[in-house]
């Protein structure tokens, strides 16, 4: 019995796929795994595991948190960078914040619902961490575009004509009431604190530089 050409073609395709699967999907990874068992490679291939006595405590190349159960730093250890993997340093949920450079306005927490923490903007996250590290290490944690309270210093400015014209109203978007805004007034208009649920979409989000020293990635020691 001869098969129609199009079926024959797909059978050939299926056979080709199976052949390649055996070659590149089974033989190849197993071969590499076998090679990786030779001394000098085995340690890395197994995950660069670090042991203290009989207990495996870490992988040498995977970060872990040096914080207590509540997330407070254990000061006897060197504190490593913040992690976005799961709730922090979770190798089963790797990833990044994916927040952009203009992620500056927080989603405020609902004061009525204690479980909801809101969603801080990247700017506020940076400001908060900086303040915390500053406090921990006893250095100045202030940064440009940050409020002294560790939030993003961003004003929602209402103009008469939308994006232009005189200022009619100003809200400090990341400082939920009853926080006192970091600025008393902006262009002669009193700055309000932000209320949960209020509509600020017609305001132009305006980050305020403040007078903190410019941050350099590598601050040279004097």
């Amino acid at each position, binding site marked *: 019995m001869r098969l129609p050409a199009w079926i024959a073609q797909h059978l*050939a395709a299926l056979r080709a796929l199976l052949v390649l699967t055996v070659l590149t999907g089974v033989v190849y990874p197993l071969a590499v795994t076998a090679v*990786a068992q030779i001394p000098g*490679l085995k340690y890395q291939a197994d995950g660069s*595991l670090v042991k203290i006595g009989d207990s495996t405590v870490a992988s040498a190349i*995977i970060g872990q948190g*040096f914080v207590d159960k509540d997330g407070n730093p254990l000061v006897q250890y060197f504190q490593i960078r913040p992690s976005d993997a799961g709730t922090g340093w979770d*190798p089963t949920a*790797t990833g990044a914040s994916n927040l952009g450079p203009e992620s500056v306005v927080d989603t405020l927490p609902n004061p009525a619902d204690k479980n909801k923490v809101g969603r801080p903007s990247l700017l506020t996250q940076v400001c908060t961490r900086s303040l915390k590290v500053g406090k921990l290490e006893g250095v100045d944690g202030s940064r440009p575009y940050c409020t002294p309270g560790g939030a993003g210093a961003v004003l929602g400015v209402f103009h008469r004509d939308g994006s232009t014209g005189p200022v009619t109203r100003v809200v400090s978007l990341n400082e939920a009431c009853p926080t006192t805004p970091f600025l008393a007034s902006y262009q002669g208009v009193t700055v309000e604190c932000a209320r949960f649920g209020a509509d600020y979409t017609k305001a132009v989000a305006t980050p305020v530089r403040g007078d903190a020293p410019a941050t350099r990635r590598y601050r040279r020691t004097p």
Partner: protein
Amino acid sequence: MSDTTAGAVFIAVLALALAAAYRPLGDYMYRVVNSTRHLRVERVMYRLIGVNPDGEQSWGVYARSVLAFSAVSVLFLYLFLRVQHWLWLSLGFPNVVPSGAWNTAVSFVTNTNWQWYSGESTMGHLVQMAGLAVQNFASAAVGIAVAVALVRGFTRGSAKSGLRGSAGQPGPGADQLGNFWVDLVRICVRIVLPLSVLAAVVLVAGGAIQNLSAGTDVHTLAGATQHITGGPVASQEAIKDLGTNGGGFYNANSAHPFENPTAWTNWLEIFLLLVISFSLPRTFGRLVGSNKQGYAIVAAMVIMAAGSIIMINVLQGTHPGTVPAAVGAATEGTESRFGVFNSGTFASATTLTSTGSVDSFHDSYTALGGGVLLLNMMLGEVAPGGTGSGLYGILILAVLTVFVAGLMVGRTPEYLGKKIGAREVKFASLYFLTTPTLVLAGTAVGMATGWGKAGILNPGAHGLSEVLYAFTSAANNNGSAFAGLTVNTTPYNIALGLAMLLGRFLPMVFALGLAGSVAGQNPVPESAGRCWSASP
């Protein structure tokens, strides 16, 4: 050494290494695709597949073979994902949901490797290595095969029986483009497989893991428990880069220490994901019998790539934007093992090719920096592009450029001795229509529907870029993401799957159609009045 200097040295060494590989690798690939000999293992494979390795195919048959193989691959991978729970090494992960399985199956078969899922919490080891990684090999080989078939179209004509005749073999028919099955097997067996073995072992030496363990629970110094994962990572990482696939074992992709442990493996991975695509122009030059043609193509690629890499490094280095100003650098989303500059170079390389793996997170890039990445993909990924797809993309770009330029010097335009007439322009135009159509239609639908807007993470124009980036990445078969967008929804999985599928195979068919069209022509001799565009 300041980190700017370090970044510059990093790029310079990379360029030197690629330049050094250009001739040997390009020549080697030429010999592989132009050889008349079959290795013993290949003969066995042809027998198992049931094809005659010496039969030649016309463009239609070649295209149907590509499509048949890819269709079977999608179906096979889909079923694999749907039943993974019941197979070995599933790590207990459940079967993948239908829309997700569809999206991933298409994604890997199309060399896109768009990932809606987190590898470490969705895919078992078996499906990673025998399902996904197989398509990493196959899709790369299919890309190269189609590119080679297109080039063969230019070298063959009805007057002379093509260049293969010079190897002592009876010349193939006029409009024959080679044999897809032979190309597929050879490219796998002789090019990508050996290079992958080499690269995988080197990556293991650098710290990438390679085992079949389900992972180890460790008790950290702080008293918590951490699950250190296991898996055949290095073997998959090697082909992920080499085949410009990009689908990482982990969600964090090449930012994960087990995939990309150190600064030098980072360099190696960038090298791997560029090397085949940058060397293929040499193969092309050899095939058409003029290395100058290869240099012209690679020069065009280098100019575009260099521009892109410089721009991204400058933009990331000067880091405009509010948050980077507060931080003092555009570090968000980058690994400090690699730093801002080397991350930027990786990001540029991954979007210039169809790789899409990341060692930093593009969504957190500066606005213009992210724009450069988007632009890289929108240019059609031709500098140097995906394995094979970059070459056929730039050749078709050359065809259109030569068409307009040829008119300007008052001749019916020709490229490589073949006239560019209505039929050729039609195929080339269709080729270039496909991706913008998919990107624009996809984005329009995404922005106009509730499900489309629901996934947006960042505010304002940035959110719009997330959707545009997703469809650009899918339709261009890149697979990188402005990952802020939540795409793990049924509509996004279906829509992006369609964009990937059409964005891969329509252009391929048009490229093969063009090949068939020019293969049927008599070659036109070279003369002083002809136009050689050295750079498109």
